[in-house]
């Protein structure tokens, strides 16, 4: 075909493929990405050796939120379906774990897989009627789910399971004796409960992150992305869009649900007020600021939704000498952070990283 006519109009950096020809500061991009992955993994392993107490608990929380955001990213970023109701699946996961521990005496570590299964089924079933809803209407339907959830959890009829308004207090998730033994023999000190909570959370998070990685690079992942880009075309490729969209809802709910399970285990307590609509918005914020169609973006998103409110709080408190009662400004400062973030990184942290890489890259 004539090959002179059609060039041009292409943003330069999108042309700079294949990937392995891109050099960033002397390092080929695929190598850089792999090194980045190992550095992250190393950080996850090293953190509990350095930190303890509240610090390490916070890191665990970041990973927990990362998983919740990842769930939303898989649905919205990779499959193009909106949800303002993921707090509901977060609750399903958390309560599944809590009820199993509280009512059935299941050890905390054994609740993760069944809770994941429950959430997958819940998400899949919700995904079926959601097939008929598009865009904003789906957002509304999921919103309904989000506002119904805390009310439902308080409902008297199931209060013997959920603990009603009081919630459920859970047993402390002590490490298995053999892990305690190993740590003792290496370090000579007892493994603190905070460190163990982090390690457990990190283990689950790393496994699930790897699972998401494989998923989006699989045949199923291709189908999900095709549906996002062009649902009608996807059908003519022979993709059963109904099945894949419902499954995407299921998997998404499973990720956010497992985050809920970890939340219950880490805090040893849960109550309906932890699962309000605000939580669903938190996940959405995390997804967007990280980069909604990115797996790594979820890490940034997790950090953002946990830490930026704290930072905003600190910033507000530091105004104490100048303004009366500056705590009232926390929300404002958080809002400013958020606006600043979306201006600086309109495609999220992942998009910014991509642009930076291409700015400082050369081609072989």
């Amino acid at each position, binding site marked *: *075909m004539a090959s002179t006519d059609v060039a041009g109009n292409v943003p330069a950096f999108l042309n700079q493929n294949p990937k392995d020809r891109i050099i960033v500061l002397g390092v080929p991009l695929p190598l850089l990405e792999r090194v980045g992955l190992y550095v992250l993994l190393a950080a996850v392993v090293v953190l509990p050796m350095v930190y303890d107490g509240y610090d390490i608990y916070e890191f665990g929380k970041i990973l927990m939120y990362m998983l919740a955001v990842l769930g939303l990213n898989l649905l919205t970023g990779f499959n193009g379906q909106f949800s303002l109701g993921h707090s509901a699946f977060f609750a399903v996961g958390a309560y599944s774990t809590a009820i199993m521990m509280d009512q059935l005496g299941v050890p905390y570590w054994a609740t993760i897989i069944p809770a994941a299964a429950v959430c997958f089924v819940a998400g899949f079933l919700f995904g079926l009627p959601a097939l008929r809803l598009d865009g904003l209407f789906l957002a509304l339907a999921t919103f309904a789910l989000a506002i119904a959830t805390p009310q439902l959890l308080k409902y008297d009829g199931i209060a013997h399971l959920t603990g009603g308004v009081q919630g459920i207090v859970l047993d402390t998730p002590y490490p298995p004796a053999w892990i305690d033994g190993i740590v003792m023999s290496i370090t000579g000190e007892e493994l603190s409960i905070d460190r163990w909570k982090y390690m457990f959370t990190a283990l689950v998070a790393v496994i699930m992150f790897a699972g998401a990685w494989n998923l989006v690079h699989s045949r199923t992942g291709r189908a999900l992305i095709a549906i996002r880009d062009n649902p009608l075309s996807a059908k003519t490729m022979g993709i059963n869009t109904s099945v894949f969209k419902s499954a995407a809802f299921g998997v998404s709910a499973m990720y956010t649900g497992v985050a809920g399970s970890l939340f219950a285990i880490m805090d040893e307590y849960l109550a309906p007020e932890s699962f309000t609509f605000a939580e669903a918005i938190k996940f959405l914020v995390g997804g967007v600021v990280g980069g909604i169609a990115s797996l790594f973006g979820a890490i940034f998103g997790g950090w953002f939704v946990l830490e930026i409110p704290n930072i905003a709080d600190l910033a507000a408190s530091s105004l104490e000498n100048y303004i009366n009662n500056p705590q009232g400004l926390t929300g404002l400062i958080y809002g400013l952070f958020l606006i600043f973030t979306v201006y600086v990184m309109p495609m999220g942290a992942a998009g910014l990283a991509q642009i930076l890489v291409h700015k400082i890259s050369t081609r072989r």
Partner: protein
Amino acid sequence: MALLEIKGLKAYYGQIEALHGFDMDLEEGEITAVLGANGAGKTTTLRAICGMVKASGTITVEGENVVGMSTEAIVARHKIAHVPEGRGTFVRVSTEENLRLGAFTRRDKEIEKDYERVYHYFPRLKERRNQQAGTLSGGEQQMLAVGRALMLRPKIMLLDEPSFGLAPIITEELFKILGKINKEEGVSMLVVEQNANLALEISKDAYLLETGNVAMTGPADKIMDDEQVRKSYLGY
């Protein structure tokens, strides 16, 4: 018996009947043109064949009626590749990922090999293989749509306005390649076109649709010579 046999095809958008019950055949190994003005039902015909609109009557492919079957099932069972109006590019993935999606229903091990087959017809796509497909030009995206259809190893290709929005020179190239694909791969094609001249040139038979009915049918060269058709659709 024809490879694709349509009898009494009606199609509906909600309550509105868009096709009013006509017959149409596509012979094995041939290219058949479907011509007509806007709103004649050309696109709807193609959509009915691959189960994307509500239809009645019979559409028999290889002896099986496909009316009422899901799009996915028709595509997978009968190897019917639909090249939609507007190309239907998966914009945010690479060219090669688009091709890969064309082979979604295939389970064999020769998918990788077939990239080269597509690149043989469209060398331009090879240059663009790792580029985000949404950044390809209109012409390239149309090549991609045809190449993606080839990845199914189709028996039948349904092409909806392949010339849409393309420069005349590119359109001509594209039709040459379509003719080549038809001969070399033995793919039967149903081509919907506004550009009647080009379509008739590569076709053996042609149908002229008018407001949901077949107004005229016959060998492509006869249609091309028809006074009425020339005046209304060919413009000379």
